[in-house]
Structure formats: C-alpha cells, structure tokens
C-alpha cells in the first residue's frame, strides 16, 4: 500500500465516522417523533488488497466503509399494533357514544321516563276516588299525560339526533380514511422510487404511522409487495393498489335516511366493514340505537293501546263514550288527544253513563295497568320493561368501558414494546456520539500522522 493509499484509508475512515455521527444526530433529532424507528449505521471493513512479496503474499485491510443505515424495527410487533388499534377504535367509538346514550335517557332522575310513568299512573288514581268529577284531579291527569308524552318523544328524538350525529361522523370518517389511503398510495410511490438496495427507513416509518391511524378507522388487510409497496384491501375490496388509492365514498339510497359507504365502484360495502371506528359507528347507528328506539316504541305503543282500550270502555263527564286518550302508535308520535287537552271533561273515568261525577272505576282500571305484565309476552310491567332498558344500557356501556380499558392496556403494552425496541435512547446515542467522535479524532490523527510521514519523505528529496 502506498502512503497515499494510507491517506485515503484515513479519509474514508473519517467519512464513515462522520456518517455515523450524522445518523446519531438524526436519531437524537427524532427522539420525540412518533413512530420513528431508531437507525443504526452498519460498518464494514474495506475490501482488502492482496500484497505479493518475494517471501509470500498477504492481505492488507483498506479501512472502513458504511454498508447501510438500518432501521431497528419489529414487523411482527407493528402488525400486532395495527390489529389491536382496530379493536380499540371500535370499542372507543362505542363507549363514547354509549355515554351520550346514557345521558339521553337521563336515569335515574326526577325528570326521566321512569318518573313520568309513575306520576302518570298515580294521577289516574286521584281521579278514581273519591271525587272523579274533580277538575283539579283531571287537570293533573292531563298534565302528567302531556309530561309523559313529551318525555317519551324527547328521549326518542335524542336517539334520532344521536343517529344523525353518528351519520355525520361516518361521513367525516370516510374523508379521513380517504386522506390516509391517498397518503399511503403517495408513500408507496415514493418508496417504489427508492433504489431497491437503498434504505427507505423514514418513508417506511411514515407509512407505518399512517397504517396505525388507518387501523383505528377501518378493518383492512395489508399485503407487502416485492417493491416494498403495500396493497390495502377491506374484505377483498381493494383500497390501495401500488401507488393508486381507490377511494371510498358515501351516498344515500331512497330506502334509508342514512349514509351508506361505497367503494370505488360505487357499491355499498357497509356489511364488509366490521372493525375500527367506522364499524363502531355503523353498529351504533344501525343496530344499537335502533334497538333502543324499538324498545321505546314498544313501550309507547303498549301504553297507547292499553290506556285507549280501557278508556274506550268508560264514559266522560258528559255521559259520552270514551274517545282515544292517546293518539299515535310510537314514541315518536304519541300525543294526548287534543279534545282531552282542551277539555278535561272528556276524560272517561266512569264505568257507567250515569253518575259520571262519582264513578271512577275506569280511572282505577287505567291506573291498575301499571301493575299488569303487559310486555315481553306478558312478563314485565311497563315500569319493569323500562328498568330493563336502563339496565341493559348501563351494562352495555359499562362493558364497553371495560373493553376500552382492557384494549388500551394491551395496545399501550405493545406500543411500550415498540418504544423499547425502536425508540431512541439519548444516553445510548450520546455514548455512540462520543464513540464516533473519538473514532473520528483517531482517524484524523492517523491522517495527520501519515501527512507528517509524507512530509518527512518529501524533505529527504
């Protein structure tokens, strides 16, 4: 090896240590960057030269080279995080909306349906005896009936509002999903353009982060291609192919008031979405809240039909047969008959046409409906049926809260493991920095020494 080659060896050594310090700097700069995977410089010794001498031959090293900058990353862990993030997104959406659902019912309280029901039945008892003709007692029945219908309608409308809000959230979520699909397609494009033997560490990190974001939003399968691009599909429906995003859209059909999610071919894919925030929203909108609405409607229609049936048997204060007490057939349209609202003498409390002022047998019968098992195949009274609704809701909400807590613990554990594997340690980087600095200084000293040797040689001339 010539002296100039030795000089070159020193220079390359300095360059390698400098690269390593640059990578350390990059690591330190990204100590707080979410989803950043620390990078490591891989040093390799230079290709040796074979020196032939009369006494034999030997190989002489040529210093050091940087072969690659590696990303410290666990693909299996990343896949687990993506999978668990889907569940968390689903559960979190459920839980946050269950809380709103609970607030809508406002139980136990003095202004909810349970209390309105109690007061309604009790007001009939006051008409029943001892003075059924008393206008004051009849006014109370009217007021409590209006209070009950208002409370039922308000609660029902709150459920409809919640469905509308969720529907709007679904629209927004689709926009967010599309944005992420575009980002993935764009990153796929950039990654594909990086030479295959070069590392695309930072681009891969960015794509991993977007994949986690997307996992929270929707269920999908990611397939890694040979050119390091990732194809995304949901239940076989392609969403990203190579560098192309096949965006979702929303639309309303004539059959439904609510948005449906469509793929790039404009086909409804609601049934294919089964995890992530958007699946949680769909389930709440189309199943959970619908069930509560159905329960409220069942409760209301039973109250309407049973009260009306008994009321028809009675006679009002004018001796006329009882008219419908309630109008409507569900929680959304239950109202007190306007004639009764305008004139309480139309309340048919008497079982006979005569003595309607003193006969309150029908009022007593209507009040007695509260103790009759009218719902769920004559298993539950009206109050018990409503208590069951609240019980179901409280337990569902409590269960979803526990699922969120459990899932958060699981995901945090995985994120902790990722932070442990891929996260930057300042102490470690500083140690490396000192190490590289010293190596750099040593290489510089080596160059300086070789330079002195060359100078000495030159002075000999």
């Amino acid at each position, binding site marked *: 090896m010539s002296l100039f080659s030795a000089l070159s060896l020193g220079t390359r050594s300095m360059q390698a240590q400098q690269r390593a310090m640059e990578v350390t700097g990059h690591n330190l700069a990204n*100590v*707080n960057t979410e989803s950043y995977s620390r990078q490591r410089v891989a040093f390799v010794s230079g290709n040796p030269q074979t020196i032939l001498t009369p006494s034999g031959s030997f190989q002489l090293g040529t210093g050091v080279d940087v072969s690659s900058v590696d990303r410290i990353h666990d693909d299996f862990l990343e896949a687990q995080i993506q999978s668990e993030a889907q569940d968390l997104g689903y559960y979190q959406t459920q839980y946050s909306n*269950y*809380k709103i659902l*609970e607030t809508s019912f406002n*139980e*136990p309280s003095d202004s909810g349906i*349970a*209390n309105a029901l*109690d*007061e309604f039945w*009790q007001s009939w*008892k*006051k008409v*029943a*005896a*001892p*003075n*059924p*003709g*008393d206008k004051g007692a009849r006014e109370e029945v009217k007021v409590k009936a209006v209070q009950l219908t208002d409370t039922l309608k308000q609660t029902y409308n709150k459920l409809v509002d919640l469905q509308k809000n969720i529907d709007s959230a679904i629209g927004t979520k689709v926009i967010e999903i599309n944005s992420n699909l575009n980002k993935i397609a764009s990153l796929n494009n950039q990654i594909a353009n990086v030479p295959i033997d070069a590392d695309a560490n930072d681009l891969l990190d960015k794509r991993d982060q977007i994949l986690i974001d997307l996992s929270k939003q929707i269920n999908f399968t990611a397939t890694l291609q040979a050119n390091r691009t990732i194809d995304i599909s949901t239940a076989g429906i392609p969403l990203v192919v190579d560098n192309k995003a096949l965006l979702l859209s929303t639309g309303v059909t004539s059959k439904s008031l609510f948005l449906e999610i469509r793929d790039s071919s404009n086909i409804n894919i609601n049934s294919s979405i089964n995890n992530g925030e958007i699946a949680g929203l769909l389930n709440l909108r189309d199943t959970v809240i619908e069930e509560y609405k159905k329960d409220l409607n069942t409760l209301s229609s039973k109250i309407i039909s049973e009260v009306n049936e008994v009321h028809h048997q009675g006679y009002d204060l004018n001796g006329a*047969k009882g008219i419908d007490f309630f109008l409507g057939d569900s929680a959304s349209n239950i109202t007190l008959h306007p004639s009764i609202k305008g004139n309480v003498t139309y309340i048919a409390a008497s*079982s*006979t*046409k*005569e*003595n309607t*002022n*003193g*006969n*309150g*047998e029908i009022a*007593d019968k209507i*009040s007695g409906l509260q*103790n009759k098992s009218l719902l769920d195949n004559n298993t539950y009274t009206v*109050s018990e049926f409503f*208590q069951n609704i*609240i*019980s179901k*809701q*409280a*337990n*569902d*909400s*409590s269960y979803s*809260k526990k699922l969120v807590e459990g899932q958060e613990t699981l995901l*945090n554990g995985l*994120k*902790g493991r990722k*932070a*442990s*594997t*891929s*996260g*930057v*340690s*300042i*102490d470690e980087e*500083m*140690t490396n920095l000192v190490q590289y600095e010293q190596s750099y200084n040593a290489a510089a000293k080596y160059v300086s020494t070789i330079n002195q040797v060359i100078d000495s040689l030159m002075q000999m001339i």
Partner: protein
Amino acid sequence: MRVSNSYIFFSLKNQLSSNLENLYNSQVKVNSGKKYVLPSDDPTSAVTALRIKHSLNLNSYYKERQNYTKPYLQIADTQLTTIINTIRTVKVDLNMASNSTNDNSQLAIVATKIDKAIDSIVTTANAKYNNTFLFGGYGTNTTPFVRTGDQVKYNGSGHTVQQEINKDIFADVMIPGSKIFETHTVDSTIGLASPDAKLSTMLNSVGSPYSFSIKTGSGTPATFSVNYTTDSLQDIVTRINNSGVDVKANIKEANGMAYLTLQSKIVGESGALTITDDSSGNGLLKAISLADENAAITGTQSSYSNGLLDTLIAAKNKLQIGDTTGLSDLIAKIDSANDNILNITANVGYEIQRIETAQSFSSDEEFRLKELLSDTEGIDSIGAITELSTLQNAYEAALATSARIMKLSLLNYI
C-alpha cells in the same frame, strides 16, 4: 430490556394519566356523594336505585292518598254520630208518647219534634266535604236525599266509593245513603257480554216486540218497550232513568259481564219495587233473571229490613192524629235501623283505623326505602375519602419519581 427515552416518557405519561383518572373519579364520587354519575359507572346500583325510586314514588302517592281520604271518613263518622244522637232523642220522645197518657196536643208536639228530627237527619245525611256529597255513592254532585212531604227520595247510587290506600289495599271511603237508610234494590244474576251491543246479538230466546213495567210502592207502573235489534242494555238503562219513574237503573260490571241493577229512589218500605215482564216468559228481564211475567222479582234483592226515615214518618203521622197504637212496633223498627247505622259507623271507624295503620306503615316504608336508596347510590364517605387520600398519595409519588427520572441523563455528565 432496552429502555429508550420514548419508552420512559410513554410509560410515565400512561402511569400519570391513569393515576390522575383514578384520582378524578374518586374526587367526583366524594363531591357528588354518589357511587355513580352515569348508570354504567355502577349498573347494579343504578338499576336498584331506579327500582327503589319507583317504590318511593308509589309510597309517597299512597301517603298523599291516605292523608287526602281520611277527612272524608272522619266527617262521615261525625255525621253518622249526629244521626245516632238524633235517633236517641227521638226514641226517648216516642217511648214517652207510648208509655204515658198524653193528650192529642202533647202527641202533636212529639210529632212536630219527630218531623224536625227527620229534616235534621236528611240535612245531616246530605253532608258535603270538599264539594262532594259524602252519602251519595257515585252521585257525588247530586243532593242524595230530598224530602217531599211524607216521602224521602234517594238520588244517589248504591255504590261504595273505594280508595286504594296501599298497593291492592282498598278502603271504603264513602258509604252510599241507600245502605244507611235502606232502599229496595234488585240485581240481575245473569250478565250480558256487553252493555253496548244490541240485545239480539247476545240473546237468542227473547221475543219481539216486547215490553216490561216497573213501579215503586203503590205508584203507577211505567212501561218500557224493547226492540231487540236496535236496543242495547245501556239504551234500556237510559230509558228507565229518563222515564221519571222513581227507579235508578245502573249497569254493574263484574267478571267482564254487564249486570242490570234497579234501585228504588223512594227510601224505605214504601219504595218497594214491582217489576213485571210482559213477554209471557221469554222477555229480557226473564233472560237476565231479574223478574218473571207474574211481577215476581227473581233477581238478588238487597237485604232489606227497615228504613229509618219512612218509619219515623209513619210514627209522626200516627202521633199527629193522636194514634199511639202500634208505636212499640215502630220503636222496634227504629231500633233495628239504629243498629244498622251503628254497624255502619263502626265500619267507618274501622276504615279510619285501617288508614291510620296504612299511614304508619307508609311512613316506616318511606324511612326504610330512603335508607336503602342512600345505601344503594350513596358512597361510604369514610371509605371514599380514604380512597381519595390513597390515590392522592399514589399520584404525588408518581409525580415525584417521574420528575427525578426525567432529570437523569448522560448529558448532565458529559
């Protein structure tokens, strides 16, 4: 295990956040005094509280009803006692009139006293409370007793007004005047499926056209025609009530069937009912087992014994003309009527007692339910505050250790 800076900060953040959340939840419990804010915080307690509140609502309603109803019975009790006292005074006068030698003018004075006593009893029996006649049955806004000369008519109904004073426990709140002074009443024993359905749809064996007649005492019978294809039981009732005959017709519903009830408006024996079915044995009244074609009542008659008011009127009439024969029989009848009123008064007293028992039960129940509600939804203050302190200590410890760990770095030593 490798510990990176992001791992340390990630873990610290999670731990601090979890500690703070626990501290917040504990603080909310202490502040609100409840185990839950939303039912999902403690579903079992929340649903149990809902059930207890339902029971409390019912209980408070029954308490209100007990307080509301009691005065009706208390006033009825006072009125009945007044009537009993009047009867006692009348009896003294009658005994005196029958036992001693009195001239006609003295007997006429007794007759006048009895006449006034009858008026006094009628006025007392027309007592009102809260704008309601106490002895009119369902006729709460019609003056129950009206005296016209020697006849007293009852315009009320024969129903006893009941009030639910606790779940499925009913108290007799208002006793009808017809039970106190007794009127003739007859109930059909065969019910019809509906009061409003046409008779032809429910009765097969009745003929057409058809009529029946009703009379009270020695009055003129009133005749009512029946058209099976166009009339319902309710139509017949309305026809009787609008006819002017001294009979009150009613429909009594029991076990899903409608029964016809006829009640003489004239108080006492002179109001006895005569009902004749003119259909040669296949008419409506026969079909519902109320009367037959021979003017024989076949329905269930009220256990009629003696009427106080018509007996007093009979005694008064005798004394007015100085006739003392048979006075002792009348006194015996008054005694019997007095016994009936004493029984009713005792029953009223019994109902007052039942209400007082119910009031006491409801108050105990309220106390018990409130205690139960407090146990169900209220926090254990000492436990909750201890928990809050523990969590506060845990949070402070986490903050202190976090602050120390965060400061450590190789940078401090280079």
